[in-house]
């Protein structure tokens, strides 16, 4: 009798452990949000508008124009770098290579790396960098554009600090963040791209995002 009880208890424990394990984790939504009240069918309805990435236009390593529309329906990861960066960029892109290898065949996924030194990092320079890194195809884009545009989108929209400063080695201060954007163009995660553990976390979070049911696309 006692044994049966114990076995039964263990079974319940195991079952609940399994259950909590399979519970889907949802990722937070970052950035500003504002409630919007509108009238639908004569009733007052309050909705939340989340901060999203606004329209942009840059050029990738193949010389193709890439805009916010090109990324419609994609989950993507953004970072900021420059090809002559002596400090954190090599380690960021060593870690990003793992992300690339994990998701390059899954579809609806992109990586975009903005150069913050567009004067030096022309399209051919970015192409050469991509080649040497071992990147081909259209999963990982290295984007070049007007400096003001890059700096503005970094700070205002992706919430990553970038600054030119001749006193530091390489000439720029920038944070090595990987920012995760969902299909609705909302920020869902921000990770230290120099830390392999956080990058592994991001890989898990991308899988969570991929399993998220498609909601109405805001844009």
């Amino acid at each position, binding site marked *: 009798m006692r044994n049966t009880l114990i076995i039964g208890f263990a079974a319940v424990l195991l079952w609940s452990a399994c259950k909590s394990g399979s519970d889907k984790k949802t990722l937070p939504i970052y950035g500003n949000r504002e409630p919007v009240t509108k009238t639908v069918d004569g009733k007052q309805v309050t909705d939340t508008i989340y901060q999203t990435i606004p329209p942009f236009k840059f050029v990738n390593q193949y010389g193709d124009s890439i805009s916010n529309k090109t990324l419609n329906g994609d989950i993507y990861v953004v970072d900021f770098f420059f090809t*002559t960066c*002596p400090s954190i960029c090599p380690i960021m892109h060593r870690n990003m290579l793992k992300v690339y290898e994990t998701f390059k065949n899954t579809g609806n996924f992109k990586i975009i790396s903005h150069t913050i030194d567009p004067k030096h990092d022309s399209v051919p320079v970015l192409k050469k960098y991509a080649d040497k*890194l071992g990147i081909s195809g259209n999963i990982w884009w290295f984007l070049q554009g007007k400096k003001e545009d890059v700096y503005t989108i970094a700070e205002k929209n992706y919430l990553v600090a970038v600054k030119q400063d001749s006193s530091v080695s390489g000439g720029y201060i920038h944070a090595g963040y990987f920012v995760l954007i969902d299909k609705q163009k909302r920020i869902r995660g921000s990770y230290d791209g120099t830390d392999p553990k956080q990058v592994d976390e991001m890989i898990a979070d991308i899988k969570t995002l991929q399993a998220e049911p498609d909601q109405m696309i805001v844009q």
Partner: protein
Amino acid sequence: MSWKLACSLIVFVIILLIAACQSEENLEFKRYYSSGALVYQQHCQNCHGANGEGLSALIPPLSDSTYLRRNLSSLPCYVKNGLKGQITVKGKVFEGTMPANDLSPVEIAQVLTYICNSWGNKLSTIDEQLVQKKLAGCK
């Protein structure tokens, strides 16, 4: 009986002496190597990787023993002043710029001892005197 004891005592003393000599050399190597690991983490690891693996075709690996042995006398200059242009490591051509590192001769000796004795490399201890001599001849 006593000559046997004397003999074994002599042998024992000789063994002790050899062991002491070895450990003296060994100790110096270990000091250089462990300090070198820290210098490596701070100044080299971002680009060359935690296992000296480099990064694709952008940054050369440090596990090419033949390259290290052949260029041993230039290595202190490479670390101190950086390196530009084409080099072939592990059969692959690399070109780019390695930045200069403002390290003291002893730090260069430590980090080179670490690199030259990690990831399959097995060269000797590279001590401070040797580094100073080589630095004087940098182009």
